[in-house]
């Protein structure tokens, strides 16, 4: 066994450019690889979290379990970007968006193939894993 401790930096695969590499919820990336978008639920108080958290602020428990985001949510709002921050220029144009699942909300991007005139607030959407051209992973919202 090597003496050098290996760093679990799986999270650097999240999004076009990830600004975080190490987190206690690194398994999120493994689930994405398997086509699943997952949140966490506190096993002590039942509070549901998306984005997933390792720690429950409600009861201070660290006893959280994964659950899969399934079914459909409703589009709360979105914006289509004409300009992008450094590192994201190649993705233009893209739309950031928020979808409400009732117990939690998910921030992400609209799927690139939805025509502008078909995007309506309140429309039903599902969250699907998306592989980016640079090999990174994220998730997007598709019309149901």
């Amino acid at each position, binding site marked *: 066994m090597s003496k050098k401790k290996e760093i679990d930096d799986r*999270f650097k695969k*999240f*999004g*076009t*450019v*990830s*600004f*975080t590499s190490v*987190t206690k919820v690194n398994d999120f990336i493994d689930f994405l690889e398997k086509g699943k978008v997952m949140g966490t639920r506190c096993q002590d108080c039942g509070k549901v979290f*998306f*984005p997933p958290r390792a720690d429950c602020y409600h009861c201070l428990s660290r006893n959280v379990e994964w659950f899969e985001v399934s079914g459909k949510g409703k589009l*709360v*709002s*979105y*914006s*289509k*970007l*004409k*300009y*992008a*921050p*450094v*590192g*994201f*220029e190649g*993705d233009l144009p*893209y*739309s*950031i*968006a*928020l979808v409400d699942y009732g117990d*939690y*909300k*998910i*921030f*992400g*991007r609209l799927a690139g193939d939805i025509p502008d005139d078909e995007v309506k*607030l309140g429309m039903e959407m599902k969250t699907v894993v998306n592989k980016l051209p640079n090999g990174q992973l*994220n998730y997007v919202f598709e019309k149901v």
Partner: protein
Amino acid sequence: MEKVAIIGVGQSAFVRGYPGSIRELAFEGFKEAVEDAKVSVGDIDASVICSAPEYDKQRSPSGVFAEYLGLIPQPTCYLESLCSSTSMGLRMAYSLVKSGLHDVVAVLGFQKMSEISSAESQERMGRGADIQWESPFGTMMPAYYAMFAKAHMEKYGTTLDDMALIRVKAATYGPINEKALFRKPVTLEMFTDPDHFMSGPVASPLRVGDCCANADGSSCLIVASEEKAKALSKKPVWILGLGAASASVNMAGRDLFTGLAVARQASEQAYKMAGVTPKDIDVAEVHDCFTISEILAYEDLGFAKPGEGRELVKSKETYKEGNIPVNVDGGLLSKGHPIGATGGSQIRTIVLQLRGDAGEMQVKDPGIGLVHNIGGVGLYGNVTILGR
């Protein structure tokens, strides 16, 4: 109850490409505030230095500034809450004075944004959001506020023209504020002319003209105890109410998209502390980083009912001659937005208004003024109420 006053205010001109270093930029606002207060630098017991981090090579600017401004060996520290840093700095100065720890405190805000490109700056600002879960999607400030604009338009029927009218109002006052970056008039037609740069898309539905611009600038407030204020100042302006709140950094943790919860919470606190209502406010400065932000502010502060904010600008009630003049110094849209200096500039305007020293921008005989200053996308909210 011992009161706390602002006895001096100052700011640099807000510019693109300030031809000096950050300590020299800080000196501009500081010199004006100290001269305005008619105090000597030695009268200042402590300083609070405010900005948004990561724009400068200099780490811990407070020590550097304290030395350059002649404020050593007095205590100094750095404080940040993004774009509302100086309002938070005023809150801290109030506590330092009210507690009796210090008699006179300088709050100095600054930002030199011109050393990095606009795209790099958007990337840094985007990282004022949730870097773990949101920034990897390619977020930036205009796109976040655009989501609020879209939700407001959908729910209440607010239009692109309503938002453009906020810019037209701001540009009415830019030309009469010698510290402002944009000093040219703007017309509604510019927003409908596809060839005019103002109408160019940034993040739907927001256009170039809906967005404020990066700038370099500094601002400074001299805060004093009641005893010192009465001894040193002919026209102290009293801090009547302070409100502050925070919200989920991740949009997924928010419930409200047609207003900013932090502004509602902070204003409620400030009104209660000051013992006033929205109707008592004679003049206000609100955080118009985007045109929609000012419409949200009207509603969050209780100047208008939810959904009716646009009526205030359409009826010109928020112009200088109206019932509740707002941003008659041109606002962030005309002045430019040097993040850490912005709150201090807003507070300076209200102090000048209450003293009757606002020159061409002066509204008629205001007694109570309000400052609404937001950090991030409604991540931090500060509301400050001042009176004569």
